[in-house]
């Protein structure tokens, strides 16, 4: 049973999958706080913050806890790309992507676990990707960050499972958002479902993993990819 008076925090919740996830969680009765660099949506609380800044994470949590209550659901959705072949990938392109997609997710997780362990209830959902477990030329940094996120998911899940905290990943395939706007149509034809997915379809999976019903699901990765990685 989800404790009363708790809230969910979604990073990168201003648009795309994050915004859809925030809406889906709200529909499930969660109070929702969104942290992003860009504009907000209909969440209960929207904070502008740079999650690659460790201090900003602490401040954001303090604000959210004060205004909405303990954070018992964390959706690590914020992610960026900076594509280049490995041969040409610059240090800062590598660093930026790893910092935002993986390191920030770790720091947010570490901070969120404190409250979740005390409450004996927690739901952490990491938005990974089919890229990582699978190759995608030009995205060595993105792939590394997403494969790393899955590794983080599994180990943290094992550490905290007995305290009522689950940690899972969703692995979206080709989803129609700003991030995939420039991807050619030929890619869609490679998807068995012959179409891109929608942010709402990914959000529905986040909603399930964040629910009380998913209490025995932990350390796993739920692919939302129209069969791409099958």
């Amino acid at each position, binding site marked *: 049973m989800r404790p009363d008076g708790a809230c969910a925090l979604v990073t990168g919740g201003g648009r795309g999958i994050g915004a859809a996830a925030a809406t889906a969680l709200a529909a499930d009765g969660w109070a929702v706080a969104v942290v992003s660099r860009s504009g907000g949506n209909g969440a209960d609380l929207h904070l502008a913050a740079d999650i690659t800044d460790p201090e900003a994470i602490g401040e954001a949590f303090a604000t959210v806890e004060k205004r909405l209550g303990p954070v018992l659901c964390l959706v690590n959705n914020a992610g960026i790309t900076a594509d280049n072949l490995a041969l040409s990938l610059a240090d800062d392109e590598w660093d930026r992507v790893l910092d935002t997609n993986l390191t920030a997710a770790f720091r947010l997780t570490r901070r969120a676990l*404190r409250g979740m*362990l*005390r409450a004996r209830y927690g739901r952490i959902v990491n938005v990974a990707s089919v890229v990582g477990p699978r190759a995608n030329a030009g995205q060595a940094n993105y792939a590394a960050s997403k494969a790393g996120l899955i590794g983080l998911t599994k180990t943290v899940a094992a*550490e*905290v499972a007995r*305290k009522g905290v689950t940690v899972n990943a969703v692995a979206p395939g080709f989803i129609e958002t700003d991030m995939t706007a420039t991807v050619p149509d030929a890619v869609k034809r490679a998807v068995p479902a012959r179409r891109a997915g929608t942010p709402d379809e990914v959000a529905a999976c986040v909603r399930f993993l964040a629910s009380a019903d998913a209490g025995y699901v932990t350390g796993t990765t739920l692919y939302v990819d129209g069969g791409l990685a099958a």
Partner: protein
Amino acid sequence: MSADTTTIESVVFTALEEFGAEKDAINRGASFEQLDVDSLDLAELSQIVEEEFGVNIKSSDVESLKTVGDVLDLIAARA
């Protein structure tokens, strides 16, 4: 933040019980191993101790804490 022995014991013993330790087995001389209290539990205990007594227990401290008495003494020394 001051703290007397009784309060410290009360907070620590209650926490250990919440972690699943047998109430009757909890005493100063009991080792965490005997109580089946592991590093995750001790990390949580550190958090509780910080909130209740303002005492900071670093993860490097945790390594040297083997018995319930070790924790009680550390809190009393730093509170």
